[in-house]
């Protein structure tokens, strides 16, 4: 096992972790407002295919990223209509959205299967110019990767340091109290969904435009569900989500490492570790009666009747 291969693994972990972190951050915002989005998988697929299509059509990857983000926001607004305005069941509506995303993304992406695009340009990490070319190539990241940690901090700041974030968290904890304080829970939930969708869209854009640089059906491979699990693991906190995303990508990296070093451990069992850890954490919290979930998560807000 060479240093190069270790670095290579770390580099690819960073690539795969980025889209996950954006998506998780988006879901943190939505769940903080009290809405769980099980359709995230579908949102990601639609964003990824839309972004890829736009990038391919215009030849401008940044336009693709923009389109992907908007597509994510719009997909989430569909969920908003179902669960906020129509007061539908969140789990069922989310799953319906997932199936919608399966179909719509296939339709959008069909003409672009196998298409080539100009991916997001990669920029060398400043200060690493000295490295040999071979190493340097591993640390040429695109803009979205550089922005993901600042994005997590920004989400944290929005949620915990602004009036909007305070209102949003209040809605997620107790829509009645938020309403009593003069806020509009319905509007705030729509806003949270849209912003969450934008972030999920960025995650999907990174996947199709910067990382894989192609489009295949079901290319997100369960990332939506991983993000939902990560939100729980990170206790609905954007900064802890960084740790969660690192853990998941570390699991991926670790597998690759083991494979390259020839050690026989099933990658599939390693894959389950993050989920089992999340489960364990939940059981420990539950045993000590510390429930971290927003108190009105999943509830329909009916208003004062």
């Amino acid at each position, binding site marked *: 096992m060479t240093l190069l291969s270790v670095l290579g693994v770390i580099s690819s972990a960073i690539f795969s972790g980025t889209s996950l972190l954006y998506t998780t951050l988006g879901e943190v915002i939505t769940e903080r407002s009290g809405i769980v989005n099980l359709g995230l998988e579908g949102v990601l697929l639609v964003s990824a295919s839309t972004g890829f299509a736009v990038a391919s059509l215009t030849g401008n990857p940044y336009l693709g990223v923009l389109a992907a983000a908007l597509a994510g926001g719009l997909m989430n607004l569909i969920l908003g209509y179902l669960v906020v305005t129509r007061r*539908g069941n969140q*789990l069922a509506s989310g799953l319906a959205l997932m199936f919608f995303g399966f179909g719509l993304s296939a339709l959008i992406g069909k003409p672009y299967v196998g298409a080539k695009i100009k991916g997001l340009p990669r920029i060398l990490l400043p200060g690493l110019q000295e490295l040999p070319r071979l190493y340097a190539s591993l640390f040429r990241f695109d803009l979205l990767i550089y922005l993901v940690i600042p994005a997590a901090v920004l989400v944290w700041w929005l949620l915990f340091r602004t009036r909007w974030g305070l209102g949003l968290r209040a809605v997620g904890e107790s829509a009645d109290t938020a309403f009593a304080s003069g806020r509009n829970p319905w509007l705030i939930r729509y806003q949270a969904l849209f912003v969450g969708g934008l972030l999920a869209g960025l995650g999907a854009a990174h996947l199709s435009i910067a990382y894989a640089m192609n489009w295949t059906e*079901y290319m997100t491979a369960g990332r939506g569900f991983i993000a939902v699990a990560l939100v729980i693991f990170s206790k609905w906190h954007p900064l802890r989500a960084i740790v969660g995303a690192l853990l998941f990508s570390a699991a991926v990296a670790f597998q690759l490492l083991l494979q390259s070093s020839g050690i026989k451990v099933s990658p599939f069992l390693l894959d*389950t570790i993050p989920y089992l850890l*999340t489960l364990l954490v939940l*059981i420990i919290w*539950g045993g000590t009666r510390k429930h971290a979930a927003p108190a009105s*998560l999943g509830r329909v807000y009916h208003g004062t009747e």
Partner: protein
Amino acid sequence: MSRTNAIIPSLTQGKPRLAAFGQRFLNGVIRYTLMILLALLLFGAILLISGRNPLHSYRDMLTSTLGSAYGFSEVLVAMTPMLITALAVALPSRLILINVGVEGQLYMGACFATWGALTFRDWPAWCLLPLMVLLGMAGGALWAFMPGYLRARGIVNETITTLLLNSVAPKVVSFFIFGFWHSPMDTDKTASFVPAARLPTFFGTRVDLSLAIALVLLALFWWVMKSTRWGLEMRAIGGNPQAARRNGLPVSTYLVVVMCIGGAIAGLAGMAQVSGYYGLLLNNFSRGTGYMGFLISWLSFGDPLGILLTSFVVAVIFTGGNLLQLTQGLPFAVINILLAFTLFVVLARPTQAVIALKGAYGSEPKP
């Protein structure tokens, strides 16, 4: 719960309820038909945009599914796993247990059943098949036990745990396939099962015994809820857990046992998939069958007849979707849009289901 109780006529002896029931049933059918028409309209617009004639597409879909015996049999094939998985959600939902974990339970059922099929390949069918059924059910029940137990003890809500375990189960299956069970030719699937490990099929179609099992289970479910002591007690727990507890019903025990039974039914669906439909265990063989079951159960308020009808409609959509791929050059997944539109229009009406009142996983479970 009001609807379910209304649809499952509950022992209101001597009351003229049949006429009212028929009326409500008719109203339901009309409403759902209108909703499906709306969904078809929306999807038609999408077809039009992508340059297809929606009317031709719909005609083809209809003739290919309901217009021929073969097409109809394919609809039944597609319907079977939906029936069973929907039941695996519907039964726990009677206790307001939200089993989103059917997908994982299904994988575990398939996994256990496959172990039986590969290990006891020399056994005759009349021994092997029942064993596989039992193994499949045990696998599913095992996967549902922990969520049920944690919920009954008030530690973690079953929604979160079942969802997490959904992601774990397929990986366990992959582990066994890639590590031990794969056939010499492929790495991602087992060799075909011996004929003794295959569910018998009917009339040379792909319809197999699991359809009959599903129908029997649905009838059994209806009858247990309506007529037996356990059905009475379950309806009481689902209707008012606090009163049920004060009345001396063993609520916690019910939560665990019913969750396990739900898991066992899901496991049976997995067994039916590998033993009937595929005849082997394939990596990642189920793409959302369990979630589809959740949706179907939810849309039909966990009512057996509703499950049957909804599954049928969804199966027609899916089977017809194959045709779009073949004749119109659209990707198969596109049919999900039609399905989703149908779901959207149904979901967008004001709901009265009890399940909607409960937090997805916000509410602290109380034992």
